[in-house]
């Protein structure tokens, strides 16, 4: 293995895309993800690819649509308000069954919000965002290395199922630096005989569209999409469970919050409180059965989020309201571990499991 490189999250995403064989990027500057653009504006021409700074996120996502139609491995990145503008395009990409990777370096919202770390786009991406019956695969890395690994994985899933995949980061992960290893191999190329590349040796034209005027056609189309989504749910769920087997208090957190929560769980264990951490890595498909399992011993569940509480709804659905689920949350910052630890301690006393 080669030497590790110290990299900022945003640059890591950009380099991971290149390592994954992505040569086309279309984006629009927005804090706190602009380094992704800046890095690729420099690097993609060196790699024989194309970078365009679009006139808006609306344009950027449609350039992604076009490049994906043309059979390219393609990515865009933005931050919350920009991702909102891309929702229309995401719905079209999902319906047209195009592979594309989207990165959301989340910032505080609603509205212009702030430029601080946030996890408030969970509903937007996990539950829909764009119009219509579609699903977006959402990956939630928690370190700079995982930003890299999950960007590569995102391309693999996107191409395997011909579907858009989103990678969640946040303002802190975009800016923080950690030592990383870049992947050595890019995902294997897939069959792209469906792409609109000009007919060349084909007799029949390839058509990529999202219009199904006869009701039957639309129903069949949605059924086909959802057969694919069910397959993704079966095959692609990812999570980690840390000290959950005997956990009285189960903390559920994803992304950067799962790192802080893990430290809080360690503090609790040192003090004799049996705490555990369940971390969903795929937010859709949500690892609900694994979470149900991980909560089997729990007397209480705390979800820790940098939002007013969004994932908590999926957590409640997953554990079927067997035990109370409460929210620990902060807005505009990543809390320190002791804040979550205090919440664990308080809960442990309430349910009388504290040491």
């Amino acid at each position: 293995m080669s030497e590790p490189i110290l990299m900022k999250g945003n640059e890591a995403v950009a380099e991971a895309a290149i390592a994954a064989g992505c040569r086309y990027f279309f984006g629009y500057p927005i804090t706190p993800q602009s380094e992704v653009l800046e890095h690729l504006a420099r690097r993609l021409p060196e790699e024989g690819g194309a970078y365009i700074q679009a006139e808006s996120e609306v344009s950027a996502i449609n350039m992604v649509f076009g490049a994906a139609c043309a059979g390219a491995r393609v990515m865009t990145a933005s931050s919350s308000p920009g991702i909102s503008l891309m929702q229309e395009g995401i719905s079209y990409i999902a319906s047209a069954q195009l592979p594309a990777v989207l990165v959301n370096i989340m910032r505080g919202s609603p509205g212009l919000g702030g430029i601080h770390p946030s996890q408030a786009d969970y509903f937007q991406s996990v539950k829909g965002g764009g119009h219509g019956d579609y699903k977006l695969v959402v990956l939630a890395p928690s370190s700079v290395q995982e930003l890299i690994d999950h960007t590569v994985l995102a391309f693999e899933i996107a191409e395997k199922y011909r579907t858009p995949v989103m990678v969640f980061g946040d303002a802190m992960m975009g800016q923080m630096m950690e030592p990383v290893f870049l992947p050595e191999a890019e995902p294997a190329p897939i069959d792209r005989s469906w792409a609109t590349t000009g007919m060349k040796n084909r007799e029949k034209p390839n058509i990529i569209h999202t219009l199904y005027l006869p009701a039957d056609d639309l129903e069949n189309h949605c059924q086909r999409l959802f057969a694919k989504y069910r397959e993704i749910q079966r095959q692609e769920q990812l999570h980690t469970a840390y000290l959950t087997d005997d956990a009285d208090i189960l903390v559920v957190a994803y992304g950067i919050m799962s790192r802080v929560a893990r430290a809080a769980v360690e503090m609790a264990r040192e003090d004799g409180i049996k705490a555990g951490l369940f971390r969903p890595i795929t937010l859709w498909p949500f690892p609900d059965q694994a979470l149900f399992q991980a909560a089997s011993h729990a007397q209480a569940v705390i979800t820790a989020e940098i939002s007013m509480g969004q994932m908590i709804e999926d957590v409640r659905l997953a554990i079927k309201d067997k035990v109370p689920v409460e929210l620990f949350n902060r807005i505009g910052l990543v809390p320190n571990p002791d804040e979550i630890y205090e919440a664990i301690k308080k809960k442990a006393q309430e349910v009388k499991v504290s040491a």
Partner: protein
Amino acid sequence: MKREFLLAGFGGQGVLSMGLFLAYAGMGEGKKVAYVPSYGAEMRGGTANCLVTISDREISSPLVSDPGVVVVMNHPSLLKFEPVVRSGGILLINSSLAHRDTKRQDIESYSIPTQELANQAGFSRGSNMIMLGALLEATGVVDVTETYNYLVKTFNGRHLDKMPQNMAAIQVGREFMREYRQQSEASIAYA
């Protein structure tokens, strides 16, 4: 062994590059590191601080509420971050811009006139490296020679033109801190 460093000052003082240097130094010894910058609203001239963690094990949280080592490069940073130093930890104060010593009794604290030292060293923009030298001496977190070799290898020719100046400033900072500690030990011995 896990150590957290909070470095704070105003934008343009080189606080972030001090943190980066520290992170690279940790990597040079094969340790796990995390570097979290936090910017003010302004890109230049605003407040700047960063948190660096160097650890033998996987770093779970890159954030802590009570870092063991805190560097304050100006007075507002002293006021803001003096209270967060972990009890028994180290506070390094840039006395060129902070107007008092620490009021806390439960920590080790050193006041370093970084600007004056930088001027004497003929590298007036090097106060951050003076402070870094003092920090390395006070904490012994890394082997400085190893760091130098690692950086030369990592940067692969880039940014290396300023390395001799930076290393000289770091050396001045280290020597100042060494004498500072000898004197304080001596004065403790007298008392």
